[in-house]
């Protein structure tokens, strides 16, 4: 079964660790998630390029603010985790995500996030710098502070697949401190990505036959 992968930067490292080295991957930046309509277009383009050149396209995404709704491949199958977003993937289940948010909503980080933020300077700390440069530090405190105000805790999700955690911890702890959040760690898993890579597509996945569009209902339980 020939596979191709179109994935968000946040899960690509872990996905690659479960796939043979010769599987083609296309990676989009994390920051796309704030413009879901754009993301939808970019994903469709990527799907169109991969369509027909492989048996199945693995999408390293979730519902992602509805960005994946409406995506369609004509010839290849598509598989995407049945999760609202990457946090659900790394927490291992929808229920775990809901439970965690119901307990106390949190700002989540994973290794993929830290690496993504570091490489394309798109994290809240980077936003802060940008605003500070344009409008001054006080405004930056106000505006980005506003943005981060609702979050009282930062949760770093640690998976077995992650490497060199110390660097991540330093980044996460610094961010927590900057935005007045408590720093917490939670043990998570890349198991869903492993199962996706190994073709074990159970009820935690949306499997889309060629020609069908992904719908919102596919993700609701």
């Amino acid at each position, binding site marked *: 079964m020939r596979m191709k992968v179109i994935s968000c930067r946040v899960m690509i490292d872990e996905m690659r*660790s479960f796939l043979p*080295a*010769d599987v083609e991957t296309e990676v989009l930046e994390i920051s796309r998630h704030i413009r879901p309509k754009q993301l939808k277009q970019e994903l469709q383009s990527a799907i169109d390029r991969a369509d027909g050149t492989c048996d199945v396209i693995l999408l390293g995404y979730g519902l992602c603010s509805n960005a994946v709704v409406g995506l369609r491949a004509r010839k290849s199958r598509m598989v995407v985790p049945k999760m609202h977003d990457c946090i659900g993937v790394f*927490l*291992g*289940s929808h*229920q*775990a995500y809901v*439970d965690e948010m119901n307990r106390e909503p949190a700002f989540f980080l994973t290794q993929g996030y830290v690496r993504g933020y570091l490489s394309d300077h798109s994290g809240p700390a980077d936003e802060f710098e940008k605003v500070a440069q344009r409008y001054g530090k006080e405004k930056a405190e106000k505006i980005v502070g506003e943005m981060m105000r609702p979050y009282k805790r930062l949760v770093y999700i640690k*998976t*077995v*697949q992650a*490497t*060199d*955690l*110390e660097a991540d911890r330093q980044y996460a702890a610094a961010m927590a401190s900057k935005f007045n959040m408590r720093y*917490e*760690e*939670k*043990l*998570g*898993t*890349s*198991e869903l990505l*492993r199962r996706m890579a190994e073709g*074990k597509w159970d009820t935690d996945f949306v499997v889309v036959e060629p020609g069908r569009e992904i719908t919102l209902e596919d993700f609701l339980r």
Partner: protein
Amino acid sequence: MTKPEIEPGTAGCEVTFQPLGRRIVVTAGTTLLEAGRRAGLLLCGGCGGVGICGRCRVSVSSGNMFPPDEEERDFLAAGSYSPGTRLACEARVASSVTVEAPLSSFPSGQRLQVEGDVAVTAHDPIVKAYQLQLCPPSLDDSRSDYRRVADALDAVAGHTDWEMLPGAASCFSSLARKGRWDLNAYTRRQQVIGFANCGMNPVGVAVDVGCTKIAVYLVDLCTGAELAASGTPNPQIPYGEDLISRLVYAAASTEKAKSLAVMVRECILQVCAKLCDSSHIIKEQIADICVVGNTAMMHLLLNLPVAQLLSAPFVASIDRDVDIPASDLGWQFAPGAQVHVLPSIGGFVGADHVAMIMARNIDRCEKLTVGLDIGTNTEIVVRDPGTGSFLTTSVPSGPVFEGGHVSHGMRAASGAIEKVYSLNGNLRYTTIDGTKPIGICGSGTVDLLAELRRIRCVDERGHLSKTHALVESGRSGARFLVAPAADTGHGRDIVLTQQDITQVQLAKAAIFAGIETLLQLTGVSPDDVQQLVVAGAFGSYLDLRSAVSIGMLPRFQNAEYLQVGNAAGAGAKLALVSKSERERARKIAEKAKRIELKQYAIFDRSMARATRFPELRSLISHAASQLPVSVQDEARSGSD
């Protein structure tokens, strides 16, 4: 790597050990140490064959050996040894040879336990069997079944006031009324828990629930002898390769948690059934079960809540030992069969670690001991008999040793390169099952790095030398060609990349730093360590010499390095047959102090240093201390 000139696996070389005349046939390329082991000889007396002490010297009187490598050559040159002297841990046979081994290498007693099988010492089983000769009821002896049995037990057991479980009563009735009034009564303290025909001893089951493999042992509770043993893959693997993933799965819903519990319980039951069959035991003879495993495995088996193990501060549900009826786990054995789960020390340092400590006597021995169980998490224990300091910890070494994070890494399965060694200046490898290689497993990766260091293909910082013939520069950096596509089972090159080396550095550093930190917290120096015990499945296949040479294990000048196999299983067997061992386990869990390494800055510093590879050091520095002064000076000027 070049193809071997002498194909390992084909030529048989007969090694004769004099003066006893012990012979063994091994394949070319085998070390004398290994040959000796197989012949029942212990040729190493010091470090355990790790390449540190230089005391495994033997004399080869005839036959061909592969020439010594740089380290051995340097060592031999420094001493005034007779010609033909070789170090057994390094010397490899090239043809049939005759070897003079010192008398001290011929063993006395039980030292050669390779399988983690420790002879059962304490034997005070909780379950006792009494042979009863009963008279069937009659008109003038209409005592109840219970009274009949109790009176008989009073006479033989020497104490009174027996209880009888209803299930045992049913058992009694159906056996006795088939005409057999001579029966074995199984008892636990004051309770009658089951019956069997005479001659059928109560049997116990010891279980080590590992993340990957479950080991089950059937033990006769009267004699303490092991009747049968078997291993089986843990059925939970599809629900999570690593234990955190399984906990996450279980935390998702009560149904999922229950399903994981049921599947592991059923798996154990099936293995028990097979072991019973092969030993001609019936399951009603199983009267006691003792289980060990890491914290996660025990929580999943007992269906304990696990969500709190996933979030800080990561607390266990129950860490004390647990006693429950076997029927609670769906196991129908003797009516009163009970399951005893050993206590855990804390956090993820679980019952299996306690069992390992017991089996290897780490809590009692007079030697300063470091104990390790290497896996995705490596548990480390350091006990100083002098001060009584007893520290344990768990370091996340990551999936490198299970094949993760390395481009061509794989689990130890058919086709995995498991051993890499030098012969005549060329690197060679062997694969599991001898088939064409399709990847490298943990032990192979460690060996490979040791060899690459030895031939200076990788520097101390871990950088691949771009000038080496077998190193190519690819798109994503330098790679070492381990096996070209033509030789592999899947038609692709098997390589070791620069990133792979980094991953190994991180994994090994965690273990090294964990050990170093515990030693510092114990207040002892590496030279004080007398024993390093490596337990566990991976530990059994790991070449400790390679592990020391790459800096995964510290170089302890005065320690003996031991590989002890499944010590957790051995510990489970000890606790199975002995009340006092269970009490001992409780004490270990209480006394051992779990260290949270994250809190110590020394761990971070140690980690940073430990990612580097140690200097290539020959054995001269140690041997030098045993040499007369003048030769020492010569040696020092000649050393690297």
